[in-house]
């Protein structure tokens, strides 16, 4: 249960002087090529157990040159949230964007704010950062008051220069405290700047990481090198088997690498890897090592998946219930129902995960792309047999992960390789490792039933969802230590989500039931951007459109009639307006042409915020090929700190959701996963990419919530509905591959 340990209490704080020195060494020590200096490594074993969150100095430092370093506990995953959090702190401090920066996450340097999950960086990260900045500003004004001999109330600040209306005198933050500690307890009591006075928050300064990313100077995880390191590769079966069933080494011939003198085989239990001084030797060694595996044929196989899930012994509970659905269904004018399926889908980060580890008998440094440096550290400590405070974990951005890809697995594997080899090791997963051993977004079966009265009011709604929970033990740990497979405690993101299943509508009688399929015996699963939500909305929103069709009402108008919540209406209207929606009942103009066109609308979200989308598609009735032509999406995420970033996130979500609805499916036999690269697991390409229109609904009066995944579900629902509009057929399973489309059309 590694992630559940993420709230581990931070311990003693690094003394401030060392803190700054370590920070300086860190920045200087990494050359543009990512080589860590010996000076940094010579600092000895890690000292700190995470800085004390109750100290202002943990959150920020003001430097002599009148700039600030803000210590942020959330990782940059390519969404721009680091820039947004700097906006928040600069706003409260009255600095401009050129005066603020941050450092990379490091268990020795940055505060433990929990993991970067659920698009929560701004929602959960900004309050502490904002409050700490406000408190630091207050302390600085008190210092300025003494220096300028004027009351705090007389002062204004611009770009870190404090002036008083009583004299022409000014003083800068840097002059007041430059690189010294505040030595102040963080009380959270300083008054915050009123939203009406915001100058930076709500505007869209450019992202600070983009220039380095386009010029090649930005250091990704994959660029980092350690002095004296060797290169490692893992050797595993191509494609995982059933979670918990294991993969056992049957035969291993170390002599098969005699043609690569520089390579060594390392093994612990069924964990097998190779290390070599030269990277290509490690790659070749992993390729050429003669090894055979015993893997049981216990998976249901892609073809038998949904039947197996429905037949399995599940743990059931009611997620939400109100009213009484039975009589409401019995007396309703219109009833719609259906069973819907969604495939396992892969994170498939564009660059496979990697990690570096330097494990000695009494300490470890592990550099990786985890979403939670503290949780990763705790698990690594257990695997390596070291106390957590002797394990230092540093974060480097890899390629977009969109949830729990192999970043922990690869970090564990690098640490095990380093421990076994007695050298620093850089491990790069190969494409088939990442595709084949991912913790996939779980498959889903949804049974939906909804009813409306003669006035088109939804009166009853029922959703039953079948899916597994998330897998808790990484493959490296299982193979090396034989740790039994286990699963997470059930959380909100692993069960039927009201935000996709009816909660947006005023429905008097509603029942949502979660049927948890046992995860052992299926593929490993974990959160993938907007976990399960695409499947929920695909099923639920098609059912709503079927009611609209039966009621003879336009789908947008039908939704308006059933929504009271101003914010759901806001995103619904924004998406419809962007798409220039013209009213007509769903599937009112179905033709028998070869190419038919349709548009659909959908609502949904993840755990916070509000998402609405419209899809315009074409279906080739002869080939079964679906082309998504234009996607429109709107998110209301409360106060949008940087609306342009949210627009970029919406745009990316509309494209990724299209990819997942049309193409993406993990395939597997009874033994193992068979989709191992971009040919066997295709994703959307330029030629298939829709036009996109993104709308960020700004709500200055609402607290900031997530925007990194909250229109995925709405987009999935909209695509399902557009298919229905174009063909008159509800498509019951995604991805909408030509074979599925042709089968659905022939069934009618």
């Amino acid at each position, binding site marked *: 249960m590694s992630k559940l340990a993420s709230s581990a209490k931070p311990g003693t704080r690094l003394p401030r002087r060392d803190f700054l020195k370590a920070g300086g060494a860190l920045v200087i020590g990494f050359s543009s090529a990512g080589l860590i200096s010996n000076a940094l490594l010579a600092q000895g074993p890690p000292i700190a157990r995470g800085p004390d969150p109750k100290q202002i100095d943990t959150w920020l430092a003001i430097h002599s040159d009148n700039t600030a370093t803000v210590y942020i506990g959330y990782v940059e995953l*390519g*969404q721009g949230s680091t820039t947004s959090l700097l906006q928040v702190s600069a706003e409260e401090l009255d600095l401009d964007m050129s005066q603020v920066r941050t450092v990379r996450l490091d268990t020795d340097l940055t505060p433990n704010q929990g993991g970067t999950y659920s698009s929560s960086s701004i929602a959960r990260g900004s309050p502490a950062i904002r409050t700490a900045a406000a408190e630091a500003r207050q302390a600085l004004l008190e210092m300025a008051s003494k220096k300028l001999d004027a009351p705090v109330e007389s002062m204004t600040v611009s770009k870190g220069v404090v002036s008083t209306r009583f004299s022409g005198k000014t003083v800068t933050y840097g002059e007041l405290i430059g690189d010294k500690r505040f030595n102040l307890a963080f009380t959270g009591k300083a008054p915050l700047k009123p939203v009406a006075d915001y100058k930076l928050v709500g505007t869209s300064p450019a992202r600070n990481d*983009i220039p380095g990313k386009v*010029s*090649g100077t*930005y250091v990704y995880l994959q660029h980092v090198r350690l002095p004296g390191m060797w290169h490692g590769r893992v050797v595993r079966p191509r494609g995982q088997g059933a979670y918990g069933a294991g993969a056992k080494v049957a035969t291993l011939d170390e002599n098969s690498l005699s043609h690569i003198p520089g390579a060594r085989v390392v093994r612990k239990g069924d964990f097998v890897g190779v290390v070599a001084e030269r990277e290509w030797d490690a790659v070749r060694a992993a390729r050429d090592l003669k090894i055979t595996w015993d893997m049981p044929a216990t998976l249901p196989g892609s073809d038998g998946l949904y039947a197996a899930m429905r037949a399995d012994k599940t743990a059931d509970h009611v997620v939400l219930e109100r009213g009484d659905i039975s009589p409401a269904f019995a007396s309703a004018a219109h009833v719609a129902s259906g069973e819907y399926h969604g495939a396992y889908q892969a994170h498939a980060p*564009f660059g496979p995960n990697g990690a570096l580890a330097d494990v000695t008998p009494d300490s470890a440094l592990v550099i990786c792309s985890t979403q939670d440096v503290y949780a990763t550290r705790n698990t690594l400590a257990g695997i390596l047999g070291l106390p957590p405070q002797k394990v230092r974990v540093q974060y480097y951005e*890899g390629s977009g992960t969109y949830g729990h890809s192999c970043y922990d697995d690869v970090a564990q594997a690098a640490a095990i390789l380093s421990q076994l080899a007695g050298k620093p090791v850089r491990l790069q997963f190969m494409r088939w490792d990442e595709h084949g051993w991912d913790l996939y977004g779980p498959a889903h079966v949804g049974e939906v039933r909804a009813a409306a009265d003669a006035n088109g009011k939804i009166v009853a709604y029922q959703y039953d969802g079948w899916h597994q929970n998330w897998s808790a033990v990484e493959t490296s740990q299982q193979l090396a230590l034989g740790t039994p497979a286990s699963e997470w405690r059930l959380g909100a993101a692993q069960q039927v989500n009201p935000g996709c299943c009816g909660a947006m509508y005023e429905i008097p009688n509603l029942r949502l039931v979660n049927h948890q399929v046992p995860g052992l015996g299926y593929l490993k699963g974990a959160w993938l951007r907007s976990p399960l939500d695409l499947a929920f909305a695909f099923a639920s929103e098609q059912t709503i459109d079927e009611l609209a069709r039966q009621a003879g009402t336009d789908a947008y108008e039908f939704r308006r009639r059933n929504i009271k919540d101003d914010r759901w209406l806001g995103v619904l209207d924004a998406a419809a307006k962007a798409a220039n929606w013209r009213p007509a009942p769903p599937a009112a103009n179905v033709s028998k042409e070869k190419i038919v066109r349709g548009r659909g609308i959908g609502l949904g979200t993840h755990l916070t915020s509000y998402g609405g989308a419209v899809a315009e598609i074409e279906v080739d009735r002869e080939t079964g090929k679906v082309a998504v032509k234009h996607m429109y999406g709107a998110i209301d995420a409360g106060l949008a700190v940087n609306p342009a970033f949210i627009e970029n996130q919406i745009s990316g979500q509309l494209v*990724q959701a299209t990819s997942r609805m049309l193409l993406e499916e993990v395939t597997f036999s009874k033994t193992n996963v068979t989709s191992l690269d971009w040919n066997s697991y295709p994703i*959307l390409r330029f030629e298939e990419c829709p036009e996109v229109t993104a709308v960020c609904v700004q709500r200055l009066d609402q607290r900031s919530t997530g925007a990194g995944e909250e229109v995925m579900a709405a987009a999935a629902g909209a695509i399902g509905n557009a298919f229905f509009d174009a063909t008159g057929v509800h498509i019951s399973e995604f991805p909408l591959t030509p074979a599925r489309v042709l089968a659905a059309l022939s069934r009618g």
Partner: protein
Amino acid sequence: MAGKIKIRVNERTHEVDAAPDTPLLYVLAGDLQLQGPRFGCGLAQCGSCSVLLDGAEIRSCVTPVSAVEGKSITTLEGLPAWYAKRHKLRKAPALHPVQQAMIDEQAVQCGYCFNGMIVQAAELLSKTPQPTDAEIRTAMNGHLCRCGSYPRVIQAIQRASRAMAAEIGGPAEEVAEEIDATEVAR
């Protein structure tokens, strides 16, 4: 097995000690510590490792280093100088127009695929200075992006195309051809 191999990268000659079958990518990223070309699939499927070989985009992850001896390799880092040389600019700009356009359009999300995106777009604009939307999509189709940045990449390429037209009036060779054609017409 390893031996000295001479390769020319970004107008500089390097002698590297590598087995001849070593994919060029491992030499560029490992021996030369370049950060443009980067590992994505090792299968020539994604475009993460793209470089220009004598001005044409190739996948360095499947190109043996021995196959590029005597040829000129340009990586992301070398694009501004490559651009300046092709167009006889007096000084290399800080960024190739495609790189600048990616910033101007804020096209990047995680940005890992942008090495390949930029290298491929630079090749495209060197051959087709004013591509249509369809030409851009076709030329870029072998480059994947997990973040879904395609729409903004297309916009950025169009922007770069306009910027290049304003700066140099099209690629060097085609400008020369147009002059020739004009002279013939006279």
